């Protein structure tokens, strides 16, 4: 097991090995701790890893590090055994399945090994990897391990290297390699800047990823960067070497006299994990228990695993299982489906296609249109459902679906539309119903005329991301879809939803088809059918966020005040409309966060033959936050102004807010953004830290920091939502609501509101009703008009519905209570209810909350300050600190809202920094698993994370989506750090495109993206500059 190997390598074996050998072992152990995760290291073996590297070209870390230390392996084929160097082992053609790896031997290293003993020789050993997650659980873009012997005898001109072993791997190579030409290059040469430059030039020709590897230039630049990082401390002219031997290769002690210690790569060490956090939460109890930080309902059962999710419900007898077969052609006729390709699939019972649907061919039917359950004649995009295999087990269904071969015919078909540009050319758009299309703001030509400067035609492309799991956020719509699909009346269908393992929009419209498919199969086969959509197909089906192409023109004055903004946005909605028509309004909600003077926009929803996009948490708002900040940064860069002052000058006044948001701006006192903006500057020491960042950047060549303060404005609207409250004979209370519990704490807030609402009857024990309330699963026949749980306001609306029910019940109970009070002086809740039962008082109330037109839309505010550090060698961004103030209005439960804010923010970090949604040329997602789709982990969140919830009391508490957009502050801070890196390159005379300080930073700003903007050849530039300087 890898974990056992690590333990052994790190064991303290006093005296058994030399200090140097121990250090090598320890570093190998340290590196191995970054392989996969602990629970994988506990079952994966070192040998298995090497065999995968040998046979399958697995991008192994173990192979690379062990290669650098002359590891010997022993293999067994049949009766014969063979000892090989790891290099020979890896270089052989893939071994057959009967060859067994018997042993792995790492030699004991000491500096005198193999050469004449020299007390002043020192063994250097370092390992490196660049991967999206610092603590592992992510494959590296490249890994490296360097071992060398350095003569410490001070010579007038430098050090000399001997016995070098430089290994690189995982960069798109069949197996880890040693760069022998580089190793030999050092022999007999004194280390110097120019030698280093030559070596790096040589290395560039040796570490070249194979064709088809992603980000090849980035990976090669990592090889250069790591070698430079390893060797440059030996070349620093100011370095003095301490006398005698040193304990281990430790740069700090090797160079303890160094005056430039601050510029060491390893110098700025901060903890890999979160080091501190603060939560400021205003607590109120005037509406007890509403507003109190009640623990989430069922949290303890979730911790013990006893909480039941859809897939935990035991299958009924004779249950069958289904799996989808989907299209891999964007536009083709489906001629046939062959199930038994090669091996015959076990347990297959039926293949369901569009012909088996008794009613309409409907996968989902919602506000703006419908999509077919299965493709009929023509496929309309990759990932479209074509058929449903039903088998005796989920495994067999999945295997059969995987092995199925679909025959296509593309003859005489128009080519598919695979880009928004083609969609424009062929006029392929979805309509946005006029009420949903936001109004233009102000007079654009007037605004443009006022401007001193214009920037035209800058472009930015948006990528998208998505989240997955199962079950549904809108049972009501699923219900309608299924009924139509089966051709039965609505009352023949019932959809139940208990809790979701997360929703985030991925279980809205897209989940309906899963339910419909089961329903159709069950209808046809007359037995229960169940489907667990596996990760891969779920990723394919969900479609992710809408990719966009944005073209903007912006006019502004010399002081940074923007006077006009014109946006042309092409949005790829994919093959089906889903809820795309809501996108313009959502985008504008966040786009109007600044006073642009005049704002004109043209948003087109392009109908393409790409996967249909969904409404992922903060749909459109996430992208719009990026667009707004890109414009602001562009203006600041053009004017060479501090970005923060450009933001500041363009913040809304209440007047301009009313101009931009005529129906939702609210009263001046409700516009809390300016005060939060100022307050956060103080509580986060923003100005002091801005100076400290500048100082840091002056002193550090290879790490740059950036800090950014960003406001968010997020408009939400309330929708009608039903609720039902019933009081049972024993005084316990049952509640049903339209909203779905998906982790956001809706049930908990509803419970609190029920306890408060019924407590208004003011009898004995009415203050302690919370524990008597139970919210039960949604059932589309018991409570109708449930709607859609989305848009951050469903908790609030469900609470309102419940409050209306409680009011009715309290009104019915009060006369009875007063009668009893007169008689007995006091009355307990239980007695009151019992009495109500004997008097046949109706103790069940149902209500549909209808938002008031004048208050249904309102705006949420928040500000975030984020500070990041970018490693210019790897492009890695570390979030050092984030401070947030979010105006929760009137938090129904601050503990839950805090969780929503932090959680949404970290999900936003995923969107802005990590989650790459890559597709093939037909649009089929290829980052469809946890190997390739990297969401944030505990080591990628801010090292310091401070959140303050402001209870301004203005509105209720939508906290689900708005805080996600605060994560744009990390993106902006990264951009600031990159700008510093580019300034530095410029100062080295690298006046090409990487020298420009206008930074168009993509989303997500992954390591390769950041490094490319910092300059892939930054090391070379530095060396050339240094050589020229001397």
């Amino acid at each position: 097991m890898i974990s056992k190997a690590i333990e052994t390598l790190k064991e303290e074996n006093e005296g058994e090995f030399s200090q140097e050998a121990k250090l090598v072992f320890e570093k190998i152990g340290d590196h191995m701790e970054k392989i996969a995760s602990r629970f994988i290291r506990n079952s994966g073996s070192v040998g298995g890893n090497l065999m995968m590297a040998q046979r399958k070209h697995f991008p192994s870390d173990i192979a690379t590090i062990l290669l650098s230390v002359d590891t010997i392996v022993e293999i067994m084929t049949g009766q014969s055994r063979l000892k090989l160097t790891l290099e020979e082992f890896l270089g052989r053609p893939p071994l057959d399945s009967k060859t067994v790896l018997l042993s792995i031997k790492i030699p004991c290293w000491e500096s005198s090994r193999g050469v004449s003993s020299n007390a002043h020789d020192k063994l250097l050993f370092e390992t490196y990897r660049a991967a999206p997650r610092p603590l592992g659980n992510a494959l590296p873009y490249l890994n490296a391990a360097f071992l060398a012997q350095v003569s410490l005898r001070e010579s007038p001109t430098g050090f000399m290297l001997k016995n070098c072993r430089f290994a690189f791997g995982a960069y798109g190579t069949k197996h880890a390699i040693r760069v022998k030409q580089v190793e030999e290059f050092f022999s007999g040469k004194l280390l110097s800047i120019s030698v280093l430059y030559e070596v790096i030039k040589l290395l560039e020709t040796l570490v070249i990823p194979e064709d088809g590897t992603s980000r090849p230039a980035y990976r090669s630049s990592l090889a250069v960067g790591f070698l430079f990082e390893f060797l440059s401390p030996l070349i620093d002219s100011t370095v003095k070497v301490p006398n005698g031997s040193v304990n281990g290769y430790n740069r700090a002690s090797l160079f303890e006299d160094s005056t430039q210690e601050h510029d060491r790569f390893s110098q700025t060490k901060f903890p890999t994990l979160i080091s501190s956090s603060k939560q400021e939460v205003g607590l109120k109890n005037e509406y007890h228990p509403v507003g109190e930080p009640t623990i989430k309902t069922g949290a303890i059962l979730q911790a013990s695993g006893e909480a039941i999710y859809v897939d935990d419900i035991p299958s009924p007898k004779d249950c069958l299982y289904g799996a989808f077969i989907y299209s891999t052609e964007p536009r083709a006729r489906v001629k046939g489906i062959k199930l038994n390709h090669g091996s015959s699939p076990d347990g297959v019972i039926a293949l369901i296609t569009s012909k088996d649907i008794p009613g309409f061919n409907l996968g989902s039917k919602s506000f703006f249109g419908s999509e077919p359950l299965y493709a009929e004649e023509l496929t309309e995009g990759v990932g479209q459902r074509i058929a449903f295999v039903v088998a005796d087990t989920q495994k067999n269904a999945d295997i059969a679906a995987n092995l199925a071969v679909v025959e296509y015919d593309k003859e005489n078909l128009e080519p598919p539309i695979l880009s928004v540009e083609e969609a424009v050319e062929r006029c392929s758009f979805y309509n946005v119903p006029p009420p949903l299309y936001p109004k233009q703001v102000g007079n654009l030509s007037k605004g443009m005329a006022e401007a001193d400067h214009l920037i035209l035609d800058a472009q930015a492309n948006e990528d998208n991301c998505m989240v997955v799991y199962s079950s549904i956020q809108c049972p009501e719509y699923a219900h309608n879809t299924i009924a139509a699909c089966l051709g039965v009346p609505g009352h023949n269908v019932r959809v139940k939803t208990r809790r979701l393992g997360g929703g985030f929009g991925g279980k809205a419209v897209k989940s309906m088809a899963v339910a419909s498919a089961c329903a159709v199969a069950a209808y046809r086969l007359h037995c229960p059918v169940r489907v667990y959509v596996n990760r891969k197909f779920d990723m394919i089906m969900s479609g992710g966020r809408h990719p966009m192409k944005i073209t903007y023109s912006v006019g502004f004055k010399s002081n940074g005040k923007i006077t006009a903004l014109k946006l042309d946005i092409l949005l790829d909605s994919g093959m089906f409309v889903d809820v795309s028509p809501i996108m313009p309004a959502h985008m504008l909600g966040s786009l109007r966060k600044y006073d642009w003077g005049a704002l004109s926009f043209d948003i087109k929803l392009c109908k393409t033959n790409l996967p249909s996009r969904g409404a992922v948490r903060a749909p459109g708002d996430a992208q719009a936050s990026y667009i707004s900040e890109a414009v602001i940064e562009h203006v600041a860069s053009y004017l060479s102004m501090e970005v923060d002052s450009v933001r500041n000058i363009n913040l809304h006044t209440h007047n301009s807010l009313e101009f931009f948001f005529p129906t939702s701006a609210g009263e001046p006192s409700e516009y809390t953004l300016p005060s939060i903006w100022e307050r956060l500057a103080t509580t986060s020491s923003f100005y002091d830290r801005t100076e400290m960042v500048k100082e840091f950047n002056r002193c550090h060549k290879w790490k740059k920091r950036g800090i950014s303060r960003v406001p968010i404005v997020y408009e939400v609207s309330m929708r009608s939502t039903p609720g039902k409250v019933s009081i049972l004979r024993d005084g316990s209370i049952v509640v049903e609501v339209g909203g779905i519990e998906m982790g956001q704490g809706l049930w908990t807030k509803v419970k609190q509101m029920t306890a408060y609402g019924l407590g208004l009857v003011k009898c004995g024990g009415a203050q302690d009703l919370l524990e008597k309330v139970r919210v039960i699963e949604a059932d589309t026949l018991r409570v109708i008009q449930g709607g859609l749980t989305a848009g951050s306001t469903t908790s609030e609306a469900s609470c309102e519905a419940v409050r209306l029910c409680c009011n009715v019940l309290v009104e019915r109970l009060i006369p009875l209570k007063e009668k009893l009070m007169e008689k007995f002086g006091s009355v307990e809740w239980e007695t009151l209810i019992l009495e109500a039962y004997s008097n046949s008082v109706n103790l069940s109330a149902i209500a549909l909350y209808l938002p008031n037109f004048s208050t249904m839309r309102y705006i949420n505010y928040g500000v975030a300050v984020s500070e990041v550090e970018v490693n210019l060698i790897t492009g890695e961004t570390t979030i050092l600190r984030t401070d947030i103030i979010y105006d929760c209005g009137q938090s129904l439960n601050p503990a839950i809202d805090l969780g929503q804010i932090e959680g949404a923010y970290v999900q936003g970090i995923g969107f802005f920094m990590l989650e790459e949604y890559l597709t093939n040329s037909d649009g089929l997602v290829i980052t469809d698993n946890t190997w390739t789709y990297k969401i944030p982990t505990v080591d990628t969140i801010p090292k310091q994370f401070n959140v303050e919830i402001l209870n301004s009391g203005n509105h209720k508490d939508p906290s689900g989506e708005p805080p996600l957009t605060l994560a744009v502050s990390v993106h902006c801070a990264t951009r600031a750090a990159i700008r510093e890196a580019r300034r530095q390159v410029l100062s080295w005379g690298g006046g090409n495109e990487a020298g420009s300080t206008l930074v168009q930073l993509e989303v997500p700003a992954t390591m390769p993206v950041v490094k490319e903007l910092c300059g892939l050849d930054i090391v070379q530039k530095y060396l050339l500059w240094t050589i020229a300087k001397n």
Partner: protein
Amino acid sequence: MVKNTNDMDTTTKRSLVFAVNGRSFELCNVDPSTTLLEFLRYQTPFKSVKLSCGEGGCGACVVLLSRYDSATDKVEDSTVSSCLTLLGSVNGCSITTAEGIGNSKDGFHPIQERFSGFHASQCGFCTPGMCVSFYSALINAEKSNDRPEPCTGFSKLTVSEAEKSIAGNLCRCTGYRPIVDACKSFASDVDMEDLGFNSFWRKGESNEVKLSRLPPYDRKNVTRVFPEFLKKDSTVGANVDSQRCHWRSPVSLEELQNLLQMEDNEGTSMKIVGKSLEDK
């Protein structure tokens, strides 16, 4: 694993014996390609193990696997992804899921109570796996002999270990901070000031009061019992047969060589499931 062979002669036993949360299971005729996850979810009431990625990348299905070493009379506890663990490999093991750590019937473990009170569970899909990962780190730290005795109410675990214990577990809802706080609350070197918003105490209370409000953790109560019936024959690997597949656990190189030869002679296909011999 050996596919499609006829009556292989072997003297070792033909059933799998293991325990889940103390309950014993003895299986004959099990398809060795069944994963531990499939077995737990479909053939036991322990559904806390969640299928999320199916490839060891998320930690939602993590269980604790305990093995008894009769030579040292010690139990080794480590976490594994049950979605990647083949049932054939768990012979003689004692498996603990989140329900086994604590549950509504036998009482919850303070880990679960603190996860709840630190608001560390939102949708809850990752929570059982998180609890198991942390539980493993906790009991392994408690087993170490070279650490000083912690103060009452705390464990031998350090803050850094507590944080790293959940490093491979994915959570999409919380942003991790509250989970880290719940785990850190057990660490011997924790600064109570660093622990975030929770339902146990109010701001400004003294550290003693804070500690007293936490669901108590008592190191003396964490002794875990390894099922006696597994101690007897846990050293021998199982050989299991089903209609399609057979599982063989060779204990010597010769045995392995013989098995490998069989592939040549009998036209069976074989897959070696990596398990180093010195582990035995």
